[in-house]
């Protein structure tokens, strides 16, 4: 068993090694494929079921996606099929997350919607090698296997299986710098195309009661004067990560507002949350669960204490380095 693990590990590393040298250049096809995948996820209607594996856990989820049409906004419903019933409904500028245990949370965006370049090209080619390495079959569909290999240790690598016809994501494997698999997502069935009326009706079934509404505002300074940066900034970012969006929202854990900044390098993304702390039970902690790393640090300014929390699909070391570098903008020397 141990030996098998070792062999698989070595093979994977070897696979990376070989592919890293055989075709060192990112092919234009691969870039195009990644762009098409991001576009298809928005512009196509589809429904399907997929499994998500992380560590010893395996979860089944289902998704219904309605593309944006002339008079309909983009809609999506993700249903967790295992364990406590939970679902996500995304519709226009609203997003509902309902959980059997914790009630319904509604996220409501103002006029400015965040645009996050996740799984899109652009900067990503400078920090990842993108390679098409083969043809496979996933969920009964022909798939193109695309490797997304990071060029440094600040980010994870992906193996992506994209539908040959639609470029939709069929399977995704996240790999760390040791070649160890961190998470897997894989469709077991996928139907692309016009949704039937009864399926569409499911998308309109919004939760009846809302327990908590989170009104998301663009950072006030940010929206009025676009060139004024947010109140908080990071002193260090891994190369390639850029600020995609900055908002203010009520904190989910206290009565204060929290500044939320999201950064992306085109593939991975992480958020930095800063909120005033008045619990006086300060803590610093870090946790890694599957693909998500979470780090919390304390920043002190005079008598005021702030919680800095970094969450994202980046290695824990990267998240920690970002977290300790967060500082108020005005402190810039």
């Amino acid at each position, binding site marked *: 068993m*141990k*030996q098998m693990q*070792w062999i698989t590990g*070595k093979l994977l590393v070897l696979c990376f090694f070989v592919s890293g040298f055989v075709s060192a250049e990112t092919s234009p096809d691969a870039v195009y494929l990644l762009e098409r995948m*991001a576009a298809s*996820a928005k512009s196509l209607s589809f429904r399907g079921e997929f499994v*998500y594996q*992380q560590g010893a*856990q395996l979860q089944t*989820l289902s998704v219904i996606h309605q593309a944006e049409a002339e008079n309909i906004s983009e809609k999506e419903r993700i249903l*967790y099929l295992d364990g406590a019933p939970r679902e*996500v409904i*995304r519709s226009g500028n609203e997003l509902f*997350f309902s*959980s059997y245990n914790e009630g319904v949370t509604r996220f409501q*965006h103002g006029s400015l*919607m*965040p*645009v996050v*370049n*996740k*799984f*899109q090209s652009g900067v990503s080619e400078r920090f990842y090698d993108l390679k098409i390495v083969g043809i496979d079959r996933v969920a009964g569909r022909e798939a193109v296997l695309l490797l997304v290999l990071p060029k*440094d240790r600040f980010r994870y690598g992906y193996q992506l299986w994209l539908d040959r016809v639609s470029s939709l*994501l069929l399977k995704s494997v996240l790999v760390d*710098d*040791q070649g160890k698999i961190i*998470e897997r997502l894989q469709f077991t069935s996928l139907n692309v195309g016009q949704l039937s009326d009864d399926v569409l009706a499911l998308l309109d079934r919004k939760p009846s009661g809302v327990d908590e509404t989170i009104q998301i505002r663009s950072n006030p300074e940010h929206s009025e004067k676009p060139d004024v940066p947010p109140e908080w900034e990071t002193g260090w970012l891994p190369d390639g990560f850029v600020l995609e*969006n900055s908002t203010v929202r009520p904190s*989910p854990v206290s009565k204060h507002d929290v500044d939320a900044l*999201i950064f*992306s390098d085109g593939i991975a*993304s992480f*958020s930095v949350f800063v909120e005033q702390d008045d619990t*006086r*039970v*300060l*803590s*610093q*902690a870090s*946790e890694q669960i*599957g*693909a*998500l790393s*979470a780090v*919390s*640090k*304390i920043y*002190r300014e*005079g008598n005021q*204490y702030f*919680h*800095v929390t970094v*969450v994202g*699909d980046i290695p824990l*070391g990267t998240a*920690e380095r970002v977290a300790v570098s967060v*500082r108020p903008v005005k*402190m*810039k020397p």
Partner: protein
Amino acid sequence: MSEKSSQNSAREHLKESLSVSLDGQASELELRRVIDSIGKDDDLRALAGRYQLIGETLRGNSSKFANVDISRGVMNAIEQEEADNTGAQNVSGAKGSSAISPVSGRFFEDVWASLGKVAVAASVAFAIVVGVRNSNPSPDLQVLAENEPVTLTQPVQLAQSGHNDYGALGIRAGYNSRQHDGITPEQLAYAQSLADRATRERFHAYALQHAELSAMGSGQSILSFARLTSFDNQ
């Protein structure tokens, strides 16, 4: 003939254990066997060095210390320390002389054979010998030094004593140690468990916020929300 082939196969096995150890996948037994041998076997040590170099290159970070063999120094240090301890126990006052006196090979074997100590010492020594841990150095301190402007405002370093031991379970409560005067360990433990829970809740809540943030703009909500299940099941 057969003896030779069995020796060869034992050797192959040892190499394999070495490789597994470098991957951090070895059982304690395997690790101990490798440690036991690596001290006496120059070939094996050289091989470990090469494996490490290959690993580093594959990971894209060749270390400037990669060629420095410090295993001998570590062995000596451990040997010395064991001698110190035993010397102090057996002959009071002889500590100074035992520290510099040469330690016999037999004694060395005995020390290596004692299980509990070896397990600890071995993992420490091995980590240093092959540098398995240097791939992801704990960044806080050096980063603080690099990035923080020299002002009165500094992040509060609560866990200064052991910057490696935080984690959801290693949380310090309270602003500074003065507050803990007159607090019983039970109260402290209770405060820590509260802080643990608060942190966990915050991570959970922020994981949802992050999923929302990254889903709204990108359209790639499947992965973002699937990841929440990991936090849910804690």
